């Protein structure tokens, strides 16, 4: 069996092995999501291109498709280059150059929530720990508005809940786990503290914990439906723990109160650090290279949010790696569907609707390039050779498209 790196989610597991013999795929260590991703990547790996005129699709060569794509994008005044959350850092770099060359705007699905979160002052608080640090030191773990059982299956077993680490000799026995969510989640089964709160009440809970931890006042009555005993118990455990880590997810970011919630987290970390203990907050998001995309794109001024698509600000779109017509909210998807569309990525709904569509080989198979894990650690794909069939890497397609467009421009 051969070592691979899984890009089924943002954990980018690199301790897994795969073997393909006579079309039979055999994996060890990949979770259900990762194995499914590998299977569908292998099944759908038939590099091909098509163009579509008034609903009628024609299969064309890759070269022809690239020329058609270049033509379409060059004739646009203001194209949007959308996707990237599942692309390698190297492909994203090419995307940025293409956006510059075309005078276009580049955007990722995360632009709305996660980018905002990462630019909040919370993230200027020296939060630069990685997941290995959490495994070795995280004594009190809180999943806040995030549910790893749903989307980052191995997060608890590999890093945050169960494994033993340097200062966590007994694994789960050495940790205390909390889950805060608006509903009873499967992750709560592992938790010592389960807080089910009404939507939008996160900052109230954080505030109560801050006052209890810093000793300014004690919780005397229910906060957001949670009894004082439960909150005081959690605060007591936080005070006891040498290192507290909160993994915050969409519940914090997309609840409409993102700013207040993130400020609440910041105050929480200050309070815990104020009593001489370590505290950190790390984001949770499932898309494989969401962090790499945000990191690369946030340094670029010409990025945009998907709301602009609705406003009809664009006259053409290049979608890379993201089945945008499925994943975008209805109004944005509708607006996008009406634009002349070039699609590069695995086959899906968007590939079947685009004027030009180039279906590529998933990076789990090509095994080339790098992505940033959830904690920003750079992970390099591993090449493995059992997959001997035809390959067409997203990166190569982007490189050729950029070259073509540059040539035309000059």
């Amino acid at each position: 069996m051969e070592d691979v790196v899984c890009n089924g989610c943002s954990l980018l597991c690199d301790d897994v092995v795969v073997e393909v013999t006579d079309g039979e795929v055999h994996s060890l260590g990949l979770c259900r999501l990762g194995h499914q991703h590998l299977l569908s990547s292998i099944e759908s790996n038939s590099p091909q291109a098509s163009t579509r005129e008034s609903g009628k699709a024609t299969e064309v060569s890759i070269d022809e498709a690239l020329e058609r794509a270049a033509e379409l994008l060059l004739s646009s005044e203001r194209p949007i280059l959308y996707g990237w959350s599942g692309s390698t850092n190297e492909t994203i770099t090419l995307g940025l150059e293409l956006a510059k060359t075309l005078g276009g705007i580049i955007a990722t699905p995360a632009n709305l929530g996660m980018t905002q979160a990462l630019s909040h002052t919370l993230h200027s608080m020296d939060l630069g720990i990685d997941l290995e640090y959490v495994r070795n030191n995280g004594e009190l773990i809180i999943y806040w508005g995030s549910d790893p059982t749903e989307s980052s299956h191995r997060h608890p077993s590999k890093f945050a809940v169960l494994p033993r680490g340097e200062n966590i000799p007994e694994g789960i026995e050495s940790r205390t786990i909390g889950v805060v969510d608006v509903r009873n989640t499967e992750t709560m089964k592992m938790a010592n503290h389960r807080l089910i709160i009404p939507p939008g009440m996160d900052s109230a809970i954080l505030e109560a914990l801050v006052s209890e931890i810093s000793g300014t006042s004690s919780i005397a009555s229910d906060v957001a439906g949670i009894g004082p005993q439960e909150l005081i118990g959690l605060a007591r455990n936080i005070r006891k723990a040498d290192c507290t880590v909160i993994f915050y997810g969409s519940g914090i970011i997309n609840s409409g109160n993102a700013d207040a919630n993130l400020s609440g987290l910041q105050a929480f970390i200050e309070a815990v650090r104020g009593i001489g203990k370590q505290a950190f907050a790390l984001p949770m998001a499932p898309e494989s290279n969401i962090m790499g995309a945000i990191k690369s794109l946030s340094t670029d001024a010409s990025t945009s949010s998907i709301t602009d698509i609705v406003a009809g600000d664009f006259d053409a779109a290049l979608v890379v790696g993201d089945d945008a017509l499925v994943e975008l909210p209805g109004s944005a998807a509708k607006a996008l569907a009406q634009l002349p569309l070039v699609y590069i990525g695995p086959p899906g709904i968007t590939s079947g609707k685009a004027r030009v569509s180039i279906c590529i080989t998933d990076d789990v198979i090509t095994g080339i390039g790098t992505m940033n894990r959830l904690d920003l650690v750079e992970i390099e794909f591993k090449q493995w050779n059992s997959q001997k069939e035809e390959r067409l890497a997203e990166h190569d397609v982007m490189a050729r498209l950029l070259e073509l467009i540059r040539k035309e421009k000059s």
Partner: protein
Amino acid sequence: MKLNPMELYNLLPKTNCRLCEAKTCMAFATKMALGDVLPEDCPPLLEKGFEKNLEKLRDLVAPMQSAEETGIKLDESKCTGCGNCVVVCPVDVAVEPPTGRGKAGRSRDTVFIVENGVSKIINLEKCRRFPPDRLNCRVCEQYCCTDAIEIW
């Protein structure tokens, strides 16, 4: 098989001394009937004067501890392949130490292995619920968030 808690209770010291986790003898008897605690978990029972009771209790709970009477089942259709069971099972950690630090298991000497996206029990007989250990371990069930593991 089912044990009668009353029958077990009558053999306990009946002092509610609170030395056990259950805190009362009746609660302790109920737990023992479910196989969650063993007679030796009651410290006063191990003292002089209770030898006969201890022996009787051991005889009563013994069938629960036998291979036929305990079991563990994994429903692959519910399993997400999260690996919690692999990492938390004390047998797995002993035979393949990297699993205890969160790494995927590969040796095939473990009780669990995550293969093709789901966990499988490949060495059931190593589970410490079975003889010779007969321990009342159920941590894999406890930390399987999707309830794919069932122990009886």
